[in-house]
């Protein structure tokens, strides 16, 4: 579903690359955590999938297509196949919950009938029945994030990208959000979530890709937030973060 082939992203020639020759593949229907310290390149990875930015080197494939070959007028089509959720929700403050979700359908030309049918369904999936007519400021942070998720998936994208979606939420609320994301993943959507939240990663036991300074440090299935791999250098026992750094 998503494939990176030696992808490098350099924002500024004077600094180190944000992504440094990364190769990895994420299959359809997978749930992947993208972890790593601040500045390790997680958001950059997501931006490249969205074609918000172009790779400096290498090739990014999304749904089998080299995104560099997608002309600017077809970029919207690529983005319709990808839902995005952010830490700061990004809802429209003067629209109701229903209208916020419906907005994503209106702007791509869906008919009123389909919108009226689909939006309540999606709101139910994210656990917001009965709150259709609230405005964002009348909702808790967790509920606002659910609205954002509903908006991201209402057009049934094959991929959902989440950039620290629980970053502003307390642990219990975060867990609720993770249940929603898991449900969406079970319905067949590939989910890639960048996060700092170790509890959640440990709880979910999904594939974990750890970045550091723009390179893949580890890539493990059903993993924890910190590596479970046996550490080879005896001196470095604790985190194992440097274990795969030199390959």
């Amino acid at each position: 579903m998503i494939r990176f082939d030696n992808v490098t992203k350099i924002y500024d020639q004077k600094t180190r690359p944000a992504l440094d020759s990364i190769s990895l593949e994420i299959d359809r229907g997978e749930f992947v955590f993208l972890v790593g310290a601040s500045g390790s390149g997680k958001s950059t990875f997501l931006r490249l999938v969205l074609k918000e930015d172009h790779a400096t080197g290498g090739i990014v494939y999304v749904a089998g297509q080299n995104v560099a070959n997608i002309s600017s007028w077809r970029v919207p089509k690529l983005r319709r196949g990808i839902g995005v959720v952010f830490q700061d929700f990004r809802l429209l403050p003067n629209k109701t919950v229903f209208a916020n979700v419906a907005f994503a359908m209106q702007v791509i030309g869906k008919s009123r009938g389909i919108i009226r049918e689909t939006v309540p369904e999606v709101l139910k999936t994210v656990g917001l029945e009965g709150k259709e007519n609230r405005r964002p400021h009348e909702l808790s942070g967790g509920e606002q994030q659910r609205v954002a998720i509903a908006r991201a998936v209402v057009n049934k994208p094959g991929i959902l990208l989440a950039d620290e979606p629980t970053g502003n939420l307390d642990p219990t609320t975060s867990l609720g959000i993770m249940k929603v994301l898991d449900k969406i993943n079970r319905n067949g959507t590939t989910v890639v979530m960048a996060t700092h939240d170790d509890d959640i990663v440990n709880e979910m036991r999904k594939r974990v890709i750890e970045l550091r300074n723009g390179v893949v440090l580890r890539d493990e299935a059903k993993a924890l937030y910190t590596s479970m791999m046996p550490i080879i250098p005896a001196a470095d026992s604790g985190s194992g973060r440097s274990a795969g750094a030199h390959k």
Partner: protein
Amino acid sequence: MRLAFILGEIGGGLRRNVSMVVSVILVTFVSLTFVGTAGMLQMQINQMKGYWYDKVQVAVFLCVDTSTSPSCASGPATDEQKKNIETLLDSAAVKPYVTSWAYESQADALKHFKEQFANSPIVDSVSADQLPASFRVNMVNPEKYQIINETFSATPGVETVIDQRQLLEKLFSVMNIASLVAVGIAGLMIICAILLIATTIRLSAFSRRRETGIMRLVGASKAVIQLPFVLEGVIAAVIGAVLASGTVWAVAKFFIQDYLADQYKDTAFISANQVLILTPGLLVLGILLAGISSLLTLRKYLKV
């Protein structure tokens, strides 16, 4: 659905920026009014050219008592001198350039003068012997006026040769300058309009950056994102263009057609309906103005 959505966005945008929209309307209105005025002046010039160029003649004025030119040294033109001029007009050197000519005696001249200034007290103080007799020459090609001038200006008994077309040319050049001034002012105003539209759209795009950001993320097409902004500018400009057309039409109707044409009955004036052909031009110009300046602005502020 998408159309309804775009219309809703436009409505919202227009409401949010009422004062900017009004200023865009006013500045396009004023600039296009100047463009329309220039167009109207040109139409009037063409109208007068068409009307007058068939009628203008070259006048060969004969000497009277008070003449001072060297060729009038011998006093008022004699019958013999007149005969000589008539022969010259029918001679092989001149005839090919002349379609017809007529003699206007001093009595005729007085009669025409009285007709022309019927309402003026000056008529009573003029007598026939003060007005020169003349030969009125219609040219095959009015541009060849020099031939007549060279042939007759030094001929005895001729005081002066006047090309009426040159009198008209003076009037036309004044009108041309006026229309150039109008175009110049219009040009400045159009620059104002373009900058103002660009600013309006920039503000509008800024105040809606949340919406457009989300639209981009969920895959709205460039047209859906940008069209509301472009159309906002275009609608304002079209309103300005309609007001400008109305103003130009009103000037043509109430000033030119109802007032000037009534005052100067023997001059050809354009009618208000003729001026209406300027309207599509003004509309297109308004749309281009707004469309181009908004597209240029959006390219910078609303990347997809």
